[in-house]
């Protein structure tokens, strides 16, 4: 693996090396290093103000880092900025639009900025996939917020970038668009596009991302595959309500209770039967019994708390 790194097709989609950025006294990024291989669906998570957007902006050349280097598909975002930007499609977090133009004009102009003319076939495909066709000739001003968000996604895709970065694409977006959007993005990912996603909806990240980085106050506090993160920071749990009886030791001290709902973590499924037997023997009457899967929300909370303690 280590040896393959140097061959051209092992150049990662994104390489971030030792990047720091301060805004006045705020340390938005603090020595961030990160590699995202091609074809990955990568999640960038963190609380508000963690530095996610700053990192994306540095990749896109909108923010100049104080230290460190960034490369997209092996192209330095400063030294080789024009080639690097061709490789990158960014959906900005802020809902911005140019009020002078219709949806189609906006996309044609955006294509032109990348030096692409006669892009209508691809533009139509994007419009189709994002359910924007009915609004193709509507002025941007007249679109609803969710529609504007779709156009932002479309704008990021006009030049068929191999690397697509979505900064909270589903903030304030209805269920239908979320589903449409994810279907399209997953298809692009299946076609080989690298996807980087930030979101505060952790179940989205859990469902789609194969690897995740968690940022806190400009530092990476966790970076691993989604599976490993779930395994190391969250566990399966037996959840139930007690209709009668009391939890015996040692189960009682291992369990957590929240408004009547008990949660007993376990690692392997063969631990379940003995636990249930012990509960029965202690005279517990169980209600609403279910097995909870590890979830990213729990991982997130634990990672953030651990970072707090460190």
């Amino acid at each position, binding site marked *: 693996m280590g040896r393959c790194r140097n061959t051209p097709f092992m150049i990662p989609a994104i390489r971030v090396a030792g990047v720091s950025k301060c805004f006045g006294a705020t340390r938005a990024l603090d020595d961030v290093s990160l590699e995202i291989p091609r074809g990955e669906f990568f999640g960038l998570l963190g609380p508000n103000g963690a530095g996610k957007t700053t990192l994306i902006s540095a990749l896109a050349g909108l923010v100049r880092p104080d230290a460190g280097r960034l490369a997209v598909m092996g192209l330095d975002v400063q030294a080789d900025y024009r080639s690097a930007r061709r490789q990158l499609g960014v959906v900005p977090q802020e809902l911005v639009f140019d009020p002078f133009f219709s949806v189609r004009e906006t996309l044609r102009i955006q294509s032109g900025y990348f*030096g692409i003319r006669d892009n209508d076939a691809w533009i139509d495909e994007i419009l189709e996939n994002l359910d924007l066709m009915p609004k193709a000739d509507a002025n941007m001003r007249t679109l609803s917020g969710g529609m504007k968000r779709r156009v932002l996604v479309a704008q990021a895709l006009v030049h068929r970038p191999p690397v697509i970065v979505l900064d909270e694409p589903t903030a304030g977006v209805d269920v239908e668009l979320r589903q449409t959007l994810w279907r399209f993005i997953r298809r692009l990912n299946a076609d080989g596009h690298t996807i980087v996603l930030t979101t505060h909806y952790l179940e989205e990240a859990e469902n789609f991302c194969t690897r995740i980085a968690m940022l806190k106050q400009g530092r990476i506090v966790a970076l691993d595959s989604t599976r490993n993160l779930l395994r190391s920071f969250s566990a399966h749990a037996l959840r139930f309500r007690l209709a009668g009886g009391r939890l015996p030791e040692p189960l009682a001290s291992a369990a957590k209770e929240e408004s009547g709902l008990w949660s007993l973590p376990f690692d392997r499924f063969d631990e379940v039967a003995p636990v249930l037997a012990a509960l029965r023997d202690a005279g517990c009457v169980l209600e609403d019994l279910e097995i909870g899967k590890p979830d990213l929300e729990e991982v997130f909370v634990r990672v953030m708390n651990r970072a707090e303690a460190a």
Partner: protein
Amino acid sequence: MSGFSTLLYKEVLRFWKVAFQTVAAPVLTAMLYLLIFSHVLEEHVQVHGVAYSSFLVPGLVMMSVLQNAFANSSSSLIQSKVTGSIVFVLLPPISYPAFWAAYVGAAVIRGLCVGLGVLLVTLWFARLGFEAPAWILVFAILGGGILGTLGVIAGIWADKFDQLAAFQNFLIMPLTFLSGVFYSVHSLPPFWQQVSAWNPVFYMIDGFRYGFFGISDASPWKSLAVVGACFVTLSALTLALLRRGYKLRA
């Protein structure tokens, strides 16, 4: 289509879609100036031996070119900065010289549109010669280019619309009004003649006027040198700012 031609096209489309405000309104303003000043002063003033209204027209045309060139690049930039849509031109691989050229190019085109409009309308009121048309074109383009470039600087620098208004009120307006649009500098007291000699806008208007009458306060070659030097200096400054990403890339 390259990034440059698209950005130029988009910038032209931006003002052309609202041509009523961006072209027709300034033409009307210039006409009002002409009506009022020429009506009041026609009887009393002759400059360089031409009737005052004839003298005034090229000045008004050039003033319109300059002000609208400045307005175009500066307002477009500040608007897209304030709304955030500036990211659409910052994300693509548009080089900074192309960025500069597109904004300035559109500014010159807007300036020329308005200037032409003013000229056509005022031809009804005043008789004009076209002694040296090449000079007319050269000064209109260079003047528009200078003010378009200044507009890029102001648009990048200003964070709010009122800062832009300050730039316009305290720099652009005094420079244009004290440049001999409404008078020949030879009619000024010596001190103000000296001051005018340091005002680059004076040379733009004087050179432009030479194209019409073949007469001017300064030699057109000297004016060309001053205006050309201004254009090169300001453009170099703007390119340096854009290259550093000044206020555009944090």
